[in-house]
């Protein structure tokens, strides 16, 4: 058989070879038949039993998934469960059975068909994809009603690559990596729940292949490349050899990352930087530890205030800060004070809606006015500092006068706590976020007042380039490698170092593969990134030499365009860590993140 290549969407990375297993979910055949009047009650009860059975199945699947892939993905089944509990849907079916005196299967299927029709008219693609969730539940209910056994991916006997027209989230959830080495489907998208689940279960997958299920028979040999988005049917000997090479390379790469875990972030010639994690709550700690993070460079505290109608008290905050500080001791933990506003709100605070919230009443501006809330947080931070590994950081500082006001409140709070005899770290390091261009301009004056700077690139880029990156029309203008951004960052680091304070970065740019060599060369002392990407960042830093990073940084400081800067950075990485460049290019970015 001649090799045949199919191209689709890369849904979950990794490359595997295996034998195809054609999985086709047959719709249960349903025909109408009349129900005698006296049996209407029993028919409704039968329908309700099927709902209860389906609910049980879904809860079991969710539990199994939670054990294997963690809590985050199990949310995907909340909508499934709500469909089984949907009062309107249930009422419509019950009414249908009563009025038409027809069997539950038939009435249920017709109601679902009506919904399907309505859903197909919705313009929003994201909502349309939810149709697969509803069909998934409906199929389960029908199988429970008819008592027919459904094909099931949990009980496979041998290792296979699953090929299907489409896979429901619940089918995917039941796959085991030991048996299903990969899968490929005709339908689907990158943000479909099936794709998200495949990534969590670490099963390589390609979706949206069009007609693969018609071209493949069970037993056919094939390759699923979830990194490039290709499926190769009847792979040639040369293809198999290439796959083998890639698998070996990938395995070696993963082993290298694993080996780096307990080592510091250090260049090949022994220059050390701090590689810390950004976290939101104590629940993130296991991830920091398992990925080898060296402390926390940004502890966002907004989480306490969101999704609730009241305000968090001092004790609640203290317990959380203390837990983080104790767990990571002696590594340091930088707590950023409240950064509410912009796009983050608490309903008890009644922050009025603004036309331009990112430039409005937010973060430190809000805290300076609501000093009651601010001081409560400062007290909690101070109390958690006993082990001397806590640092405090103020967001959105725009100038000298503002910083002095903040520091005055900080000293007042320290005095209050001191008078009460509560132990705390008297010389706690105090830093500010540099995220407003005016703070860069005034960095010389600000550096005299604090112990460190942490560059918040998400806002700094947006304010410097005047780009709202949420606006899709202009999102292309949002570029960390814009020469203006690089020069500003250089200015911050140089000024900080002139005043003998360290300079870190906690925005997304600190984890951007192409930016890292430049930042290293500019002299950044600390990189704080999302825990999951720590191994990759560490790998990149450890494959560079300081002189080459410095040379790159000096070179790009003279460049006039982001494209030139990007090309120069790529050149360095393709020489030192080509695998990372490849991973970067095929990176799957989840929808709706950040």
């Amino acid at each position, binding site marked *: 058989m001649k090799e045949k290549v199919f191209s689709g969407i890369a849904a979950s990375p990794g490359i595997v070879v295996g034998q195809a297993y054609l999985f086709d979910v047959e719709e249960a055949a349903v025909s109408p038949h009349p129900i005698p009047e006296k049996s209407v009650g029993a028919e409704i009860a039968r329908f309700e039993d099927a709902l209860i059975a389906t609910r049980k199945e879904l809860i079991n699947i969710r539990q199994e998934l939670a054990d294997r892939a963690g809590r985050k993905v199990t*949310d*995907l089944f*909340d*909508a499934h469960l*709500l*469909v089984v*509990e*949907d*009062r*309107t*849907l249930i009422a419509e079916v019950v009414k249908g059975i009563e009025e038409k005196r027809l069997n539950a299967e038939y009435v249920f299927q017709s109601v679902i068909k009506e*919904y399907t029709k*309505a*859903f197909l008219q*919705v*313009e*929003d693609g*994201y*909502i349309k994809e*939810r149709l697969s*969730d*509803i069909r998934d539940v409906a199929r389960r209910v029908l199988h429970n009603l008819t008592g027919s056994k459904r094909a099931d991916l949990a009980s496979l006997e041998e290792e296979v690559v699953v090929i299907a027209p489409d896979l429901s989230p619940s089918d995917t959830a039941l796959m085991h990596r030991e048996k299903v080495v990969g899968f490929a489907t005709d339908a689907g998208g990158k943000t479909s*729940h099936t794709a998200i689940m495949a990534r969590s279960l670490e099963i390589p997958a390609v979706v949206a292949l069009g007609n693969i299920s018609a071209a493949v028979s069970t037993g056919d040999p094939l390759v699923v490349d979830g990194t490039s988005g290709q499926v190769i049917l009847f792979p040639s000997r040369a293809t198999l050899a290439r796959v083998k090479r890639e698998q070996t390379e990938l395995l070696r790469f993963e082993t290298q990352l694993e080996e780096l875990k307990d080592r510091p972030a250090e260049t090949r010639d022994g220059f050390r930087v701090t590689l810390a994690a950004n976290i939101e709550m104590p629940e993130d700690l296991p991830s920091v530890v398992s990925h080898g993070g060296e402390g926390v460079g940004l502890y966002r505290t907004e989480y306490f205030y*969101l*999704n*609730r*109608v009241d305000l968090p008290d001092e004790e609640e905050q203290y317990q959380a800060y203390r837990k983080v500080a104790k767990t990571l001791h002696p590594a340091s933990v930088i707590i950023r004070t409240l950064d509410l506003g912009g*796009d983050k*709100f*608490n*309903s008890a605070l009644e922050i009025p*809606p603004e036309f331009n919230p990112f430039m409005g009443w937010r973060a430190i501006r809000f805290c300076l006015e609501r000093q009651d809330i601010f001081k409560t947080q400062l007290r909690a931070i101070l109390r958690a500092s006993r082990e001397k590994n806590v640092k405090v950081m103020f967001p959105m500082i725009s100038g000298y006068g503002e910083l002095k006001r903040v520091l005055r409140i900080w000293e007042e709070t320290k005095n209050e706590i001191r008078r009460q005899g509560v132990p705390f770290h008297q010389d706690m390091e105090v830093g500010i976020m540099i995220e407003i261009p005016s703070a860069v301009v005034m960095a010389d004056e600000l550096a005299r007042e604090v112990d460190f700077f942490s560059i918040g690139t998400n806002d700094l880029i947006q304010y410097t380039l005047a780009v709202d990156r*949420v606006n899709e029309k202009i999102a292309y203008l949002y570029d960390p490698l814009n020469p203006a951004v690089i020069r500003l960052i250089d200015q911050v680091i140089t000024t900080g170092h002139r005043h003998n304070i360290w300079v870190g970065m906690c925005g997304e740019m600190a984890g951007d593969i192409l930016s890292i060599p430049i930042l290293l060369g500019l002299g950044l002392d600390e990189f704080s990134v999302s825990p999951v990407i720590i191994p990759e960042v560490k790998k990149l830093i450890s494959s560079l030499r300081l002189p080459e990073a410095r040379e790159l940084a000096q070179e790009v400081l003279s460049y006039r365009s982001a494209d030139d800067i990007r090309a120069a950075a790529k050149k360095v990485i393709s020489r030192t860590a080509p695998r990372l460049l490849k991973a970067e290019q095929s990176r799957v970015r989840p*929808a*709706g993140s*950040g």
Partner: protein
Amino acid sequence: MPEIVKDIKIENKLGIHARPAARFVQLSSRFSSDIILKRGEEEVNGKSIMGVLMLAAPQGSTVKVIARGVDAETAMEEIEALIKSKFGED
């Protein structure tokens, strides 16, 4: 029967998609009041996931929330807080 009606703007990036819809239904189901959602001509039961999904309220759209029943006031407060918090997303 107390009835409260309020127009609320949807601000999270993807509008009311699956997860927010689920959270909306979970919340409104906790109240004995009827919760009705309206957008343009469409009117759906706020306790029905199918209904809320079908409303497909995108970012920037305004939905009319109607709470009718003894606990209408608390229901409206908490629903408004949920929508304003962007369903904890973004």
